[in-house]
């Protein structure tokens, strides 16, 4: 009974172009990596906004350039501190070191009269020396970062006071002028102060170091977990030493730039700088976090503190009041940030599931075929290989009658006729094979959950065909990766059509997709000639089984949670699906060809009035997932399933059920072969074989698809 339906007369299945849901957008945003920095960034925006509202022309070009000019040394100090904190240390000596480097620069310039590049080298050397001392004490000897840098802070400050008192008059009375020195101190390059360029370049270098370089990764590893880093073969002490040294060099550069700009130092130069830098760091990182090289966040934190401080002082507030309000606001920012970080995952978990109302057609076309109305025909089925399999989601037979099925442990298995009792391993895939199909060359193409579409040859070679498709329209979350490739079929022209059942859940959590009820899946195609993957139709409700019709012109796709079967016209798939059959009594899984021109549909589970009603209550389902333990969630009845026989026009002709407690309770796939029907189930450990009456005993799947050859 081959199909005689007219495609254009079938009802159209509406498919949303985009799924819009505020909760989903929130959940997708929360699962982005950069959302970690949300609070410091929001704080920065609020501070900037507040200043904009209260201070006229604060963000004018002149003031911004001025701000940039003076931001350099603070910004560099924050970066220096970031490097040291990232390795798990702390550097209290940055302020003293900064002052000392500035003094060295001025001394070299005014008293020794050295050329500017040499002065830069001297400043870096001075900064680096203090950094090296810190590194030796805290890193190599292991004196403890706080103690060591406290010591250097006091010592260097003492040295600086002695030296600057002795030479300050001489420096301030010097009349030396140098073009390069002044250019560095006062001029602009491409519109920005030279010093600010230095800050930007150093920030970029540190950013790249943490992102890309081996040394940067070592720093983060040591800061994240010193013991693990040592076990991983990282030279921990050397890394710490080098981090302090690098921090010292950056401080040296800051001192040099300060000296070039100010041309003088005072007794209070650099005093309190370490606390200013620490504050900016803590605001940016949301706490004192070792092992995190977040350059951008730290600079945002620095900008927040710097602008706030600057605006308050500009507005004429007293210094102590500025400090007081700054402290209070910082505490608020930090508290919000810590709370947010702590609860982000919880918030994400509670917003991820996003149910929607689903109205499913009532059961249709099953009169006299329901399990309580007819004899359970599967009771007569023979059980093959009991206990030797684990979850054969799909079964397929080659022309010689060998049966292939996937196994939960990631292997593709073969069972040989006639008794199908011995299990052989065809290939180890690594992921769980779900749908299977033979290509014209007799190789098995399989959908593997979490891996994508793979091809297996009979000698066990596994080849990945595709694991990515184009990104969905307007998706916040990158959904290019195929998350749950489920079933496939191959059209006469060789194009492989396969389903990605859900883009939002993994195979362990596919049940949540039922509770969500949203169109989260998609139909994809892969052309082996061009090796291109295309999204044929996005936003389908759990598209599951796929079957090319006998004439090769149409494609049947089971939509599991909507209990319906959709049909695509392969000549014009972009026109979207129509409904081939709806109102099924259960959740359809795979669809396969029958010898008489009809189709077999596996029912993985059965609908019941309660779950159908609950699909109309999305808020209830969401509350349930939050308040009821997962094992107690209301669910479709997956303990009873069966096989439906459709004729070529999509009418239900017969139904095969097992007895209520029977062994073939949940059926996810079935294949007809030479007058027998072979059935597998994703939670079963056996395969059923039923002799069919009135079936074509010569019919096999490979012949139906690829002919006798």
């Amino acid at each position, binding site marked *: 009974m081959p199909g005689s339906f007219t495609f254009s007369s079938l009802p159209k299945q509406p498919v949303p172009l985009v799924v819009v849901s505020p909760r989903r957008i929130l959940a997708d945003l929360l699962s982005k990596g950069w959302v970690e920095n949300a609070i410091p960034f929001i704080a920065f925006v609020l501070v900037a906004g507040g200043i904009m509202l209260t201070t006229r022309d604060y963000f004018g070009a002149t003031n911004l350039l001025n701000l940039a000019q003076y931001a350099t040394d603070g910004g560099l100090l924050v970066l220096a501190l970031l490097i040291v904190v990232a390795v798990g240390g702390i550097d209290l000596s940055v302020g003293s070191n900064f002052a000392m480097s500035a003094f060295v620069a001025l001394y070299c310039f005014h008293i020794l009269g050295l050329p500017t590049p040499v002065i830069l080298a001297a400043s870096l050397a001075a900064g680096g020396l203090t950094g090296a001392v810190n590194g030796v004490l805290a890193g190599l000897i292991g004196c403890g970062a706080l103690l060591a840098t406290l010591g250097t802070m006091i010592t260097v400050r003492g040295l600086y006071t002695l030296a600057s008192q002795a030479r300050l008059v001489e420096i301030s009375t010097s009349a030396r002028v140098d073009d390069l020195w002044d250019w560095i101190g006062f001029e602009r390059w491409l519109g920005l102060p030279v010093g600010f360029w230095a800050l930007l370049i150093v920030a970029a270098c540190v950013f790249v170091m943490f992102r890309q370089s081996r040394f940067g990764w070592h720093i983060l590893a040591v800061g994240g977990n010193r013991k693990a880093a040592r076990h991983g073969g990282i030279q921990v002490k050397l890394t710490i030493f080098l981090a302090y040294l690098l921090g010292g060099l950056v401080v040296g550069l800051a001192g040099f730039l300060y000296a070039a700009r100010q041309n003088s130092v005072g007794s209070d130069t650099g005093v309190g700088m370490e606390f200013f830098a620490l504050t900016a760091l803590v605001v940016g990182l949301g706490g004192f976090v070792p092992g995190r090289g977040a350059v951008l966040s730290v600079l945002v934190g620095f900008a927040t503190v710097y602008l706030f401080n600057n605006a308050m002082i500009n507005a004429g507030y007293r210094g102590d009041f500025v400090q007081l309000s700054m402290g209070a606001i910082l505490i608020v920012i930090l508290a919000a940030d810590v709370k947010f970080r702590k609860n982000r995952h919880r918030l994400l978990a509670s917003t991820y599931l996003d149910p929607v109302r689903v109205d499913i057609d009532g059961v249709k076309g099953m009169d006299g075929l*329901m*399990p*309580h109305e007819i004899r359970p025909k599967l009771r007569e089925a023979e059980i093959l290989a009991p*206990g030797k399999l684990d979850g054969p989601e799909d079964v397929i037979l080659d022309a010689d009658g060998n049966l292939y099925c996937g196994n939960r442990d990631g292997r593709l298995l073969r069972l040989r006729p006639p008794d199908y009792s011995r299990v052989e391993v065809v290939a180890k895939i690594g992921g769980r094979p779900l749908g299977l199909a033979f290509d014209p060359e007799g190789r098995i193409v399989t959908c593997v959950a979490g891996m994508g579409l793979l091809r297996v040859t009979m000698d066990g070679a596994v080849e990945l065909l595709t694991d990515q498709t184009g990104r969905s329209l307007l998706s916040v979350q990158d959904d290019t990766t195929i998350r749950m490739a489920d079933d496939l079929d191959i059209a006469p022209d060789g194009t492989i059509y396969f389903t990605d059942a859900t883009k939002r859940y993994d195979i362990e959590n596919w*049940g949540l997709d039922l509770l969500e009820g949203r169109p989260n899946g998609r139909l994809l195609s892969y052309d082996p000639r061009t090796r291109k993957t295309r999204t044929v139709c996005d936003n389908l409700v759990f598209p599951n089984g796929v079957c090319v019709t006998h004439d090769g012109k149409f494609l049947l796709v089971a939509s599991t949670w909507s209990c319906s079967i959709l049909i695509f016209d392969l000549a014009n798939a972009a026109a979207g699906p129509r409904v081939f059959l709806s109102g099924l*009594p*259960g959740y359809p899984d795979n669809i396969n060809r029958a010898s008489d021109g009809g189709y077999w549909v596996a029912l993985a589970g*059965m*609908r*019941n*009035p*309660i*779950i159908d*009603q*609950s699909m109309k*209550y999305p808020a*209830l389902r969401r*509350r*349930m997932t939050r*308040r*009821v*333990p*997962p*094992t*107690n*969630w*209301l*669910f*479709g*009845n*997956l*303990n*009873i399933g069966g096989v439906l026989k459709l004729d070529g026009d999509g009418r239900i002709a017969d139904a095969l*059920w097992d007895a*209520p*407690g*029977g*062994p073939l*309770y*949940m059926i996810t796939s079935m294949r007809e072969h030479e007058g027998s029907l072979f059935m597998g189930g994703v*939670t*079963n*450990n*056996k395969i059923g074989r039923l002799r069919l009456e009135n079936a074509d005993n010569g019919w096999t799947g490979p012949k139906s698809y690829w002919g006798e050859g």
Partner: protein
Amino acid sequence: MLFATRRSDPPAMTLEGVLGPNTRLDDAAGIAVDAPNAVCVIEGLGLLFSSGSAVLAIEAWDARPTPWAVFDDTVTAIGGGPDGLVAVGLAGGGLAVCDRNGAAAGWTAPAAGPAAIADLAFLPDGAVAAVDSGYGPGDDMFARAPWDDRARGSVTSVRRDGATRQLASGLHCPTGIALDGSGAPLVTLFERAAVAELSGQLRQSGYPAYPGRIRRTDTGYLIACLARRDPLIEFLKTERDFVAEMKQSIEPRYWISPRMHPEFSHDFPIEAGATRLFGEIKPWAPSFSYGLVIETDERLVPTASAHSRANGLRHAISDAVCWNGDIIAVSRASGEVLRIGAGGTVQ
């Protein structure tokens, strides 16, 4: 009372500790009985248990059950009293009081008795206290009780002369009665999973199962449990719209509720964890039916338990008594009288 909403009941007991799962009910020896419900020990006679509208008796566990009396309606309760008196409650609300041999003991039928008798007990004053759960034989108590807000259960005392007096009313689905050490009646409340005094004051609550009958033992009480409490059902009690639509549009047999039988049907709802694996029901799977007998001390705190888990068949334990040192229980799901063995009280 600004913070009144923050108060919450103590958490319900979980199936852990002395209530931890075991297979004592599944391992127990059993006598297959057609439609059993109540069981009772009569001094000098042996064990009486109901089978449909008949009451059978055995002198010893190995003895063949002999018919003791037959009534014209389904027997729903048996209670033993002084001088060998036996009170038998019938589904339609009828009450028969017999002597040791099953013959009528000359009690006058009460003028206005309860609608249905869920359990019976002889009070110290010689009257019989009959518990009316509020659900008649045609009502599916298991399906309806969780979704019923009305507390229409009552306890009525019936005297020899037929005079009746209502001892308590406004109880929510009482299913069992026993006298405490001081002779005051205690009732089990099925849906509230609690034991209460006749005033409605809860004596002990938070049991992990919906109790059937309660019986006094030497060391405390035996509570026979009809089904396990289920977090999904407890949750749905807060979903009023959903429940209203369910009651309106779905037959009670498909409602989400505790069930008597662990049967499979394609149109019953299940919970996510109840999915079979390799065709087997996981013993730890959530299930709407369950078999549980709880032994408690004098303060009604559990001291031991006997289970038939999700994969067992001996569910819906309606009654349990101590007889010759053994616990005897009735499983309505499997249609058996079970001998669980010595009380498993663990000190």
